[in-house]
C-alpha cells in the first residue's frame, strides 16, 4: 500500500558544528523528521499547559 507522502528518499539533515577543522568540538547532525518531532513535542507541551481548559458544570461543588 503506497503512502500518501513517500518518505523513502534521502532525508534532509539539520547540521551544525562548533569548532572547525577535521575534528570539530561538537557536531549536531539530526534528520529533519526528528527535529520536527521534537519541536512538535515541545509545542504540544507548552500548548497543553497554556491553553484554557473548559470549565465543567459542578466545579467546586461536591465534597
Amino acid at each position, binding site marked *: 500500500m503506497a503512502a500518501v507522502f513517500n518518505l*523513502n528518499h534521502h532525508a534532509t539533515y539539520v547540521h551544525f558544528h562548533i569548532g572547525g577543522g577535521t*575534528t570539530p568540538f561538537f557536531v549536531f547532525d539530526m534528520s529533519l523528521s526528528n527535529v520536527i518531532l521534537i519541536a512538535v513535542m515541545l509545542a504540544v507541551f507548552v500548548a497543553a499547559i497554556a491553553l484554557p481548559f473548559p470549565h465543567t458544570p459542578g466545579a467546586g461543588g461536591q465534597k
Partner: protein
Amino acid sequence: MTWKERRAAARREDASYENWSGGYRPYDLVKEASIAFGVILALTVVLAILFSSPDEKPTTVKSWARTDPVDFVTTATTELDGSSGTGGYGPPYNHAADGQHIGPIRLQKWFGVSHPVDTAQDFVLAPLRSIPGDPTLQNAVSTYQNASASQQSAWTTAYEKALGNASATASGAISLKSGNYGPLNVMMPRLLSFAQSGGLDGQLLTSKQFYQTDYTKPLLFIADGGLLANRADAEHLSGDQWGMMNETGSYPGQVWLWLYTFWYQIKPFTSSWAANADIAVMAVMGVLSLLFVCIPFLPVINRIPRWIPVYRLIWRQHYRTASS
C-alpha cells in the same frame, strides 16, 4: 533549624499533600479512556496512511559479494588470519582481546565467551570444505591448514596488500597483481563464487542445525565488511552521525535515544575514551537512569518545580477559584 527539624518539617509538608479535602466534580473515567482510545486509533490509522513505514531490503552475503567483490574477499581474508573486527573482538566471541573496561571493571571479559566464533574456521575453511566435487579446492584448503602459522600469515599479509590495488572484473571476479599467495589463489576466488551463488548465506546460517533463528555468524561477517557500513553512512545511521536516533529514508527514528547517542558525539568519548566508549556511555546512562528514577529523593532536582513555577500555569484555574 537543625537538619533533623528540617527533615521533620519536610515530612509534615509532604504528608499534608496526601489527601484532598477540597471540592470534586463529576468525571466519567471510562468515557474519557474510550474517547482517548478512539482518537489514538484514528491518529495511528491516519499516520499509517499518510507515511507508511520503511522497509529497506537487507544486505545478504550474496548481494555483498556481487556488489563489492574486492571488499568481500578482503574481509574474508582478514577473517582467515583473525585480523577482522570479529577476529580481534574478544568476548563473547573469542579470546583474542579482553574487550572494553572501566579501570579494573572488565564486565565484557568476566562474562566470558558465550557465543564462540572462530572466524577462520566458520567464515572461510568450513564453507570451503562443504563444497563438493572440487579436489583442487580441497587440496588447497589442506595445504593452508597444514602450513605453519608464520607461513599462513605470510600468505594472507601478501594477499591483503595486493587486494588494496585489486579491481572487480565484468564477470564479478577479482583481478589482482600476481604474487606468492600460496593456496589463497584457489581458496578465495572459490569462496567468492560460492558467496555470489547464495550458498554461503545458507551455509553460515544452518551450519549448526537445519532450523535456525540465530543470525550471529552471517551478521558478524557482513558487518566486518564495508558494504553495510557504507549503506548506513549514506543514511546518516553511523555512530558519529547521531545515527542511533536517525532512521532509513526520511522517517523519524528512535528519538528517545537522543541522550544515549549524544555522548558518542563529544569528547572524551570520541577521543581518549574511544577504545572503551561503549562501556563508558553505558555507565553514564546507567547512572543517569538511576538518578531519573530517584528524582523524588534528589536534593535541588526535586525542588526545581517549586522554584520555576510552571505549576502556576497548570493550576491557574484552581488558584483563581481558591483566591476568589
